[in-house]
């Protein structure tokens, strides 16, 4: 009977070792670096309506890249208190600034510059969000740049 117990647990322990020794597919995520707006590095910018923006960034990975998505959206994040938007924390934005670009990527290093013009009619806080994914589905930690349009 002791042999029976031993066999049962050896099967399980053996299974665990087999799993540990199996080879992994690529799981290294791409990295987004060197994000600059009009050649100034940073994540928070104060801009004016009508300003031209050149957002430059680099995406790298050890395996081929697949896609990137850059989108601009209202920074209001769906939060509020007691049914009211917390105006002290996040003032409601005025106007509309919408831009979504999904671009195919190739190779392991991509440096790009995307050009935008801040609409004349807006006021408030907007997020520019950059995401990137490689061919295996590994996604980079996204970068969010905040534009305070004054």
């Amino acid at each position, binding site marked *: 009977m002791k042999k029976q117990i031993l066999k049962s647990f050896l099967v399980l322990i053996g299974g665990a070792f087999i799993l540990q020794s199996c080879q992994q597919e690529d799981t290294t*995520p791409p990295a987004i670096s060197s994000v600059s707006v009009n050649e100034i590095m940073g994540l928070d910018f104060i801009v004016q309506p009508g300003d031209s923006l050149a957002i430059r960034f680099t995406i790298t990975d050890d395996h081929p890249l697949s896609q990137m998505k850059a989108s601009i959206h209202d920074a209001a994040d769906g*939060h509020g208190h007691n049914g009211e938007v917390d105006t002290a924390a996040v003032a409601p934005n005025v106007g509309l600034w919408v831009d979504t670009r999904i671009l195919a990527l190739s190779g392991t290093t991509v440096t790009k510059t995307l050009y935008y013009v801040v609409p004349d009619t807006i006021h408030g806080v907007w997020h520019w969000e950059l995401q990137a994914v490689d061919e295996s589905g590994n996604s980079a930690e996204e*970068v969010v740049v905040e534009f305070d349009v004054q």
Partner: protein
Amino acid sequence: MRLFFLVLFLGMGYCTHAQLHGIVVDASTQLPLSHAHVEVHELNAEVITDGKGYFIVEEIPVGKYHLHVLKDNYAAKLFDFMVERDSITTLRIELLPSNFQLNEIVIEDGASKVEVRRSSQAMVSLSAKELTLANGLTLSDKLKSQPGISSISTGAGMSKPQIRSYSGSRCFIQDLGMKHEAQQWGSDHGLEIDPFQIENIEWRKGAGNVMYGSDAIGGVLSIRLPEVPKDGVHGNVGSIFQSNNNTLGNSAQISVRKNKNYLKLRSTLMKYGDMQLPADSFTYLRRIYPLAEGALQNTAGRDMHEQFVFGRLLPKGKIQVSQSLYTQDAGLFVGAIGVPTVGSVQSDGDSRNVGFPNVTLRHFKSALHFSSNTKWGWFETNAGVQENRRQEFILPRREGFQPLPNYNVAHDLRLRSAQINSYLRMTSKEGTKTLVGLFAELLQHSRGGYDFLLPNYAGTQHAVYFQRNGLLQHRKKETFRTVGLRLEQGRMRDEAFRSPVYASVDSIGFYYVRANEITRNFAGWSFEIGEAVSIHEGQSLKYSLQRAWRMPNAAELFINGVHHGTFRHEQGNAELNPEVGYLFDTAYELQTEKFQLSLAGYAHYFSNYIFLRASSFYSELSDGGQVYVYSQDRVMFSGGEMKSEFQLNTRTRLEWSAQSVFSYLFLSGTASPFTPPISSSVTLQHKLFELKNKLNVLLEVQGNWAAAQNRVDRNEKSTPGYQTLDSKLKVEWKLRGLTLESNLGVNNLFNAFYYNHTSNYRRLNLPEMGRNVFIQTLIKF
């Protein structure tokens, strides 16, 4: 079906009465034992042995029954017996001395009444007292003390149980005799069950597909039906206070029984404030977010639960009607649904309010239980209806050119279900237990809200099942074999849905097809074979092999939208096939007078496991990130649990438990998401003071350790290891008919900063709760 019930009810006419006589003795000394509790389980008839160890149960109908025999300082015993017409049945029951409190609980499978000794799977049982006085606010948190169970949490008030590495639709939760049918497909969705309501819960280690159906592929948590109260008026009041998030919870139950009729009422109200973290800031997406006074804003909430049970004991069984309503209003930390702004994590000056975003849950159950002793055996039926409504309130944000909705309900998901489960449990003269059953369920889901995830859908499921548990006569060691088979058939059908995508503020560019009208039919089978071997007295080995079958759930087939709770665009796959797994489970148990050891191990292989696979493309929806598509591939899970208890002397007890889970997705070579790390805990309990069995004061210190979890799924963060220390003072006081049990303690005594790998807040780099002083009480009268 009509013929089945006709035959069954005719069988119920068979009835004459006899008597049961018996004696309970100490197995080692053969001396009679007085004040032992003897309960005929099926009849809810309890008697207590006299000074010479004798007991008599008068007027017991002809049939097959089993007894639960309990006595302090002895291991509980279950005993099958048969009563024949106009006869006196005489029993001699021997109890083994034991120092372990857990043995006061009789462990058996809820439906088949196969006790743990005969079952080919290990079972763990927790009583109301253990649950009420366990750490945590939710049922899932309270179950975490058991190695092999963890929880996937979203803050303090929302969590769902995780059995080994299975959760959601792979964990079968049985409540009021029914499958708890809720929106369990979301990892961020909590379980709508009040932990105070539970009188006893059983965990069957390993799949339970044959008995419980498709969703039991990862494990079964079975909440026993409310017990029949003793004559008279009784009640209990449970309370909890937690300093960390200012939790105040109270639950009261009153039960009244007069002769054959009984009534039980329960009401629970629990309120909690914002969680306190052991940090004053956290870093997420390269930004530092301040935490005002360490509080995680908008994580307060309120849970309410009302339960009503009415029952009547019948000459040969019982009928019980139960209704329950569970509601929860809970805030969600703003980062849980999107990228927070620094402003949104600032304090609003009120730590107990629920702002936006928040979730409202409402779960209603109405259940009927009927059992009767028929000519052929015990017939039981559990039937009922449920409605689960989940509303997520999120202030709308402009997405692309789409007009801004003028209401705040992002999702309004309503799931209605009706089910019936009937079975006949037969016991042969040789003691072989055979169970045959039928199951049917209807599902209907409707959606609302300005956002889209799941379309309207309807589903059905039917099954017929069989299980036999009997003694193998030819084996030298006492060996019980369990064999079972379940045939299952199901259908899922959804409605088409499309959403407009605006090209500009006032024109629709095109319609995005979210769901096509699809009907899928499924049919499959599950099989189990296993053995329980008594190696020596107090030593047993169990092993089972199962082929488990699970039909895809609605989310896996039809979901198509941005799931804010998981930060991704989740896409169903209507072409999925049912999941098939080959599961091997084994357990070894050793029990002596002063030492108890449980070991459990498993190796599970799935040929086509359903999981969300990270794609290499992005959502076309403006607020959608990376698309995750439901896919199928080979997966393997293995691991084990260990629990040991040492009674060092009459005052001191030591407990050591450990668990490990390994998961492996063959396609990516990664682990499955939310795989709990290897962990262990050591508890030292010392009796400080004792007064004539009326007052007990115990001190308990528990050290918890978790290893780093570096084997993670694609795009999942690894989590460093941690150690925490908990301590509590337990007081048990008995005064006439009143019992007071109370815990005063501190969790995370040294305010350790650590991450929980199975928390939805892990991805935000938010640590777990800091130091927490708690007081729990349970008063019974």
